[in-house]
């Protein structure tokens, strides 16, 4: 059993503008990258479950082979820095991804 955290080199979150959170997962070997990509378990449905959001709130889930990484962007429920926001930079929203199990 291997977690996404163990395989990834970078696993981070950030705002992509004040209305979206973007999650970046990057690898330092083709082997690890394609192992995750080809496992096919990184899906909108999995992300929606992990983040308690609907699949419609996920704007993008894209793999980019040249960068050995994938990106997930979803709508923020509260825009950055206003009443009710807990993470102005969106920089600590990545943790739920860490324990995804990759075969």
């Amino acid at each position, binding site marked *: 059993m291997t977690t996404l955290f163990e395989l990834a080199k970078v696993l981070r979150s950030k705002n992509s503008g*004040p209305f979206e959170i973007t999650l970046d997962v990057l690898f330092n070997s083709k082997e690890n990258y394609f192992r995750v990509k080809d496992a096919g378990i990184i899906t909108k449905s999995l992300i929606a479950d992990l983040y308690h959001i609907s699949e419609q709130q996920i704007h993008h889930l894209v793999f980019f082979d040249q960068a050995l*990484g994938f990106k997930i962007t979803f709508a923020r429920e509260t825009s950055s820095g206003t009443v009710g926001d807990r993470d102005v930079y969106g920089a600590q929203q990545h943790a739920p991804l860490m324990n995804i199990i990759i075969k």
Partner: protein
Amino acid sequence: MSKHIRILSPCGMLGYGFPETSFLNGLKEEIHGIVVDAGSTDAGPHKLGAGVPIVSRRAAKKDLEILLKNGVPKKIPIIIGSAGGAGAKPHVEWTLEIIKEILNENNLKANTAVIWADFTTEEILQANKANKINPLSSNIPELTTSQIEDSFNIVAQMGHEPIVEALEQGADVIVCGRAYDPSPFAAVGAFHQKDLGLSYHLGKILECGALCAEPGTTKDSILGTIHEDYFTVESLNPKRKCTTISLAAHTFYEKEHPYILHGPGFTLDLSECEFNETLPGVISVKNSKYIKNDQHRIKLEAAKLVAYRTFVIAGIRDPILLGSIEDIEDIVIQQVQDYYKEIPQEDYQINFYNYGKNGVLGNKETTAFHGHEIGVMFEVIAKTQELATSICATVRSTFLHYGYENRKSTAGNLAFPFAPSDVEFGPVYEFSIYHLMEITENPFRIEFLEEVLQ
């Protein structure tokens, strides 16, 4: 046309600082532009709404001094993107004031151009009426008249076009209001007739300073060179190195999509990009495609004041209290509402953040709590500062003395690290406009400051 265009990016944000040696390493070669981004929406809507900068005046001056003292005598154009943090009039004026001071103190003369990015309420109301404004993404509401009227400091992100115009008119220093982050970099390429796809992709990489190198940081300098059909990026500090992966990965950064980037009037398609290491630590990039959009749209930004806040930070160590913290917080809210019966409940909001338990993810936290203490931050958001402060004082005293079940610690429930415990935060803002506006001609006004030297 055939010459190589070198752009020096001193750091990822003006005022973040950088090793002067890295910057001077860059100046050993012929440089065609020193470009620094000074803006960001990362820190939230407050800077734009309140018209205040992100960095201190001291830090901004420290960085600008190095740029101006080295760049101006060598006649290298210096371009500052999104001046003052948010690029609205008060931010631009703040930056100009500092530049003026440095030029005077160092007996330097520079032909300084300002490109304003501000829009009047009236202009936006008219454009909205003419159906020229649309939300940037599906979770942003349509603009209403009242939303526009309530907004402060309406700006739009400029592309490279007005900056190129300022360069053509002989500007030595260009202070841009709000700009699409890569635009001031791309403008140097465009001014020298380089490919726009390469110029913008390079700008996207350089705008964060050395964040694209390893180890990455926004607080160091980086060099980009545009050739005929590729560009290269290299670190100016021997402690860092660019790699094909670090560059490709940086293309990802802060954007919604890894290889389709939207800018003012165009789309950048990086899906076919190739990253190669030509010399050790020198990464070349090709096949960055600039696709001009049929309709030229610019991104509008504005903030409105939504409320006032007063907050308290305290620690909780008592295990019995920790065991039912959320229930107790609910009761505190209830008791405060009962006490202030005469104040409508919609006039204020009481929020708790239990750091150590679920402070970051809130009710989406799934990991079970097993700590022995938490930090509690509670805030009252209200229509006026007086109301927020009054209610917060009642929340604090109610929480401090609340007698929960099985309590033995009857002296008090909260460990305050500060006296006084209650902090008046001031106004809270919200991004009220984050929309795309159709334009047909350049709306960004260029102004030359005739005599900067007093």
